[in-house]
């Protein structure tokens, strides 16, 4: 199937906004609908759009597979480390070791939840894009 210029241009213009919207969903998961899983899938859909419209090798220049794999593992490590920090500080595994309710600041009030959302978002984004790039790759 021949690729058209329209697909090429639209994919390249649209993908950054999809990545941005995914990051927005991840970072505002504690105040508005969204969160790590949903935002991560939106980020991954931006990567998948690039991989489908421009080819996996072009998407791999921006998001190399070994980096995605490493980022997924690192995000999982951050999640586990956040849990263990709570264990050390005496609030239990995955307990909230920051003080919630600090609302009068530009930072998110739920800092612990923001941290977990960020880790989950990175993990889901890398995982779903890895699955699709492995399936789309042809060689």
């Amino acid at each position, binding site marked *: 199937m021949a690729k058209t210029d329209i697909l090429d241009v639209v994919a390249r213009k649209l993908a950054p906004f999809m990545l941005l919207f995914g990051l927005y969903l991840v970072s505002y998961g504690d105040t508005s609908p969204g969160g790590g899983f949903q935002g991560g899938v939106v980020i991954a859909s931006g990567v998948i759009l690039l991989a489908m419209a421009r080819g996996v090798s072009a998407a791999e220049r921006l998001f190399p597979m070994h980096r995605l794999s490493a980022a997924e593992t690192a995000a999982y490590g951050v999640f586990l480390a956040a849990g263990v920090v709570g264990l050390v500080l005496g609030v239990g595994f995955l307990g909230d070791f920051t003080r919630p309710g600090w609302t009068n600041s530009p930072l998110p009030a739920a800092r612990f939840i923001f941290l977990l959302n960020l880790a989950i978002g990175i993990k*889901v984004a890398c995982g779903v894009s890895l699955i699709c790039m*492995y399936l789309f790759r042809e060689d």
Partner: protein
Amino acid sequence: MRIVEIVAMVTVALFLALILGGSHPTETPLRGHVVENGVAETGAVNLVTAIYLGYRAFDTLGETVVLMLAVSGVIFFVEQRR
């Protein structure tokens, strides 16, 4: 074959009627606690997030393991076929 389908449909309809027509306890102690104290205890305005990352973060840890297993399985089978 057709009888099997009809039986399956009737079973599903009966199941749905029992589930949807049954009485739901709309006010449980747990729900009241989350609605009243969820924002103060976790800091998240979104109560869904307050539950799945505040009260049940361990559950979410298991969900991420499920995704990691899915990725590992896909990579295993794709690499095996190549």
